[in-house]
């Protein structure tokens, strides 16, 4: 495409300089503080961080909720993607538009809507009491359930988009062929659909998991300080205690978790070959 290699490099240079100077360098400096103790390099900050029971709880909760949201999004996402790809092109466009629509609405507005829905006088509690499942409203706000629902609603579209894209590339006759050869729907999914759409699952899973780990607004509003996650703990350390070292440690852990999740999902996808 280019007459020589330098032309391509020249085109990439502005973006590389921009990213290097304004993103990688400041982030590198910030994260490096988390490895510095008394003018020397050390991992003691991480050891001290890991020893604190609150940090352990917050780390495990973040991991658990991220994994639960990603798994639930995958289950719902596969069902939705299968339906969408089997619609005629006109209906597919409309439904796909509805899936994308929430992404165009501010996460703050979407999260505040959950306060109304999940509150004591919200529609969920109205329904629970209307159906006679409880005499008094149950508390959903400021629990892990509320954070889970908020994150799932926030990131499910990303999973559906990834899976729809992957399923559109599925050969049209693959599923009918498997059915004709006697496979039940479970076998069709595990032996045909899953192996052929794993790239979409890896992409969607990474987006949803890392999104859930790094989301701030939703855990802050729906969980508050009773359901701290790593991102809300990071904010608390910076804004309340001016503790940039702990914040750097948390940021490094979050980046590590995001990369690990991506590598793990890729490895799982590769192992199924």
């Amino acid at each position, binding site marked *: 495409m280019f007459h020589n290699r330098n032309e391509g490099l020249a085109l990439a240079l502005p973006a590389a300089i921009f990213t290097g100077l304004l993103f990688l360098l400041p982030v590198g400096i910030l994260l490096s503080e988390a490895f510095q103790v008394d003018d020397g390099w050390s991992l003691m900050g991480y050891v001290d961080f890991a020893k*604190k*029971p609150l940090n352990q709880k917050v780390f495990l909760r973040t991991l658990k909720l991220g994994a639960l949201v990603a798994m639930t999004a995958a289950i719902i996402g596969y069902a939705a993607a299968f339906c969408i790809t089997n619609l005629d092109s006109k209906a597919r466009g409309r439904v796909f538009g509805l899936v994308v629509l929430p992404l165009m609405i501010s996460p703050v507005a979407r999260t505040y809507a959950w*306060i109304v829905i999940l509150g004591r006088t919200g529609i969920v509690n109205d329904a629970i009491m209307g159906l006679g499942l409880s005499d008094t409203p149950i508390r959903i706000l400021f629990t892990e359930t509320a954070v889970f629902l908020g994150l799932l609603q926030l990131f499910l579209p990303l999973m559906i988009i990834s899976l729809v894209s992957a399923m559109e590339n599925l050969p049209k006759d693959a599923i009918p062929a498997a059915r004709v050869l006697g496979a039940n729907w479970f076998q069709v999914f595990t032996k045909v659909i899953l192996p052929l759409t794993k790239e979409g699952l890896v992409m969607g899973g990474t987006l949803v998991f890392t999104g859930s780990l790094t989301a701030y607004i939703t855990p802050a509003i729906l969980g*508050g*300080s*009773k359901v701290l996650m790593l991102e809300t703990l990071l904010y608390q350390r910076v804004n309340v205690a*001016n503790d940039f070292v702990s914040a750097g440690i948390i940021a490094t852990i979050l980046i590590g978790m995001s990369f690990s999740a991506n590598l793990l999902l890729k490895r799982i996808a590769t192992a199924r070959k």
Partner: protein
Amino acid sequence: MKKTPHLSALAILAASVAMPAMAQETLTISVYALAQDAYKAALYDPFEKLCGCKLVIETGNSVERMAKIEANAADPVIDVAVISAHDALALARKDLIADLDISKISSYDALYPAAQDPIGGHKALGYTFYASSIVYRSDLVKIESWGDLLGNAVKGRVALPNITGTQGPLTLDMINRAAGRSGVDFTQTINDVATHADDIVTFYSRSSELVQLMNQEEVIAAPVGRFAWGSFAKSNLPFAWAEPKEGQAGGMNVILMTKGNGNEDLAYKFIDYWLSDEVQTRVAEAKIDSPANKNVVVSDELAASLTYGAELINSLQILAPADIIDNRDAWVEQWNNKVIK
């Protein structure tokens, strides 16, 4: 040769543009972000007119603003700051704030005694007091003691302030007193809160968050600063301000000058103006902050929405700034280990 007249004209033009800016003094102040439009009308604009100078206003939360003062200690970019008394003490212990020459503060004698030297060494002056008590739904519950916050009447429908905010330690202090304990060892009180943690809806960080939760009927009782009472008073729901038998908690915000800022004369003028009868009255009438100047006279109706009057101010249970600074890390540690699950 022909260029000379043009250059001269340009130099004169540049000088004429630059001169007014050079002549006008500037004073940089660091303030809370709240009610800035009202402060502009009541304080900033009148002061600029009076001194012929320009005020540069920097806002942010306390931690950000304190970090900026500390980061620029060698060459201060902030001349005057307003902050809580205990945060001021933290700055004083780092030798970041100047000793005030009170002979330059003409309003000094008009201040309530508690506001005259709140952190010692004349390093700060109180400019406002705030009471803290419990706001509650009078149709659903009756609050008569700080101990009621952990009682069955509000079980599952009470919120407490987070320990990391200003209201958190005040609430612990008052629950501690209600349980018959004294001093600033809150270990048992934190244990009590931890025991009831599942009955507490949330530990809020901002009063605006609480206003929303109470208007949504999620919460029916919570401790809050009097400065937030206006948001509850205008609600359609029947909110009441408790007068617990242990009294109301209280706090004070102070005004201070950074050390070595090089702008001391103007800073003194500004501090004196803020504490004057005229400005303190205007600020109170705008319902921005309650006065620390005892000469301020307001109507009974206005007084009801402020922390106003010697009797109330003298009755406030104010935690000593040194006690907060010396114990805060331990309280947060205990809170994080026991209450946050």
